[in-house]
């Protein structure tokens, strides 16, 4: 009886660990997003502070020269590009094209960033055989 309880407990713990780790394998890792309209230090500071408060963000860098935001994300995040674009608009600026590094799966011709509901047309044929590849690709506006 005691042995059976131990096995059950061990099984629950292993299932929990598996469920906790598995969704983290498909996610955004790094994002470089071009933004229109950022002209001053205060604007950059405000946008940086705003994005830093989004769940899953490790660091934000803003370049006023290039108008590019560089975002590093925490492993296991549930960050969505659509949320990022909305946040930029709420700050009064315009999100443009992005270069994204993400882990996901191919579903036909689409590369899905699992757990986000977001998928993209990515032309990397050699990655299609890989189970969950980490790819860097560009997203148009």
């Amino acid at each position, binding site marked *: 009886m005691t042995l059976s309880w131990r096995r059950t407990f061990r099984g629950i713990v292993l299932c929990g660990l598996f469920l906790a780790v598995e969704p983290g394998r498909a996610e955004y890792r790094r994002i470089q997003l*071009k*933004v*229109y*309209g*950022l*002209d*001053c*230090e*205060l*604007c*950059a*500071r*405000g946008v*940086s*502070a*705003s994005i830093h*408060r989004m769940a899953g963000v490790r660091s934000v860098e*803003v*370049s*006023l*020269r*290039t*108008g590019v935001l560089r975002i590093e994300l925490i492993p296991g995040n549930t960050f969505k590009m659509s949320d990022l674009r909305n*946040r930029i*608009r*709420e*700050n*009064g*600026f*315009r999100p443009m094209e992005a270069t994204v590094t993400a882990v996901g799966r191919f579903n036909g011709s689409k590369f899905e960033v699992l757990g986000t509901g977001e998928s993209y047309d990515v032309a990397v044929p050699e990655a299609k055989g890989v189970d969950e590849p980490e790819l860097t690709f560009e997203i148009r506006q």
Partner: protein
Amino acid sequence: MKRVVFLCVCCLGAIRGWADAHGPAFGYSTTTLGSGDSSIETVAMWRGGVAMIGPRFSYGVTENLQFSISAPFDVNHGEHPVGRFTGMMPGEPQAEALVAWRFHHALTGIGTRNESTLYMGVSGTTQTLPRLDGPPLSREPAYYVAAATGHISRSYYIWAGAGYQHYGHWGDSEDHQSDSLLTSAVVGWRPQFFYKDYPRPDVRFFWETTGERTGLAHRGGSASTAPVTGGGHDQSAAIEASPRDANDYVVLPNSGGAGIFSGPTFLCTYRNIAFQGGVMFPVWSQLNGTQPAEGFRSFIGVSYFFLKGRK
């Protein structure tokens, strides 16, 4: 008590620095705070021998809608010039609530945007202004409407705007303050040296020109025959000879006029703090009467932005 409250606000402004001061000092601009941002600002202003302190609080309701409250007050009394001091702040001791709506916002490139903003405000007087030509006029609430449009980029800025302040007749008073029209044109420039990436000090220089026209004030009721006392010059003869309007109120001859002022200003932002200041000199002036003309007007302010409320 009122003084204590004002001093507290001023001290807070000095310690915590400010808000939406990412525009010119005197003229109209289009910038608004981000959604959830707020700012406090304290400015010191001089015009025509009168010094004023102007505290202001602003809050960004959305990225295109901003609410501000300002309450400039006199530090010393004198022959007080009338008309607005800046596009964003009254030129007389008043508490003003101002709503700014950025109704046009085109983001056209990296660091570049074209935008237009509409301002609407209401203000009530907080201090009585002494007059050299008789007892103080009773003061009524005022309405204010203004609009500004501009182009913003990393290298240069251009803004133009105009606003009109009208004193209403909400009470029993028969006196009427001078309505005022303020227009402005601003060009700004960020030197190449400050094309640094965040977080570095960001400095911009502006050349601001304002044009204003202030109407004649009217004195009604028994006050029109009150004895004239004080001041450096007796103007009772001028009052007796002055015309009367349709309501038989005295049109005060030494009130209002028109003028154009122009001069350099600057804005420096670093982290959450902004410093701003400048001076303008009269290019052309045509006063209605013999009241003293303004030799110059100057402005210096510090602001602190609270960005933690931003989404």
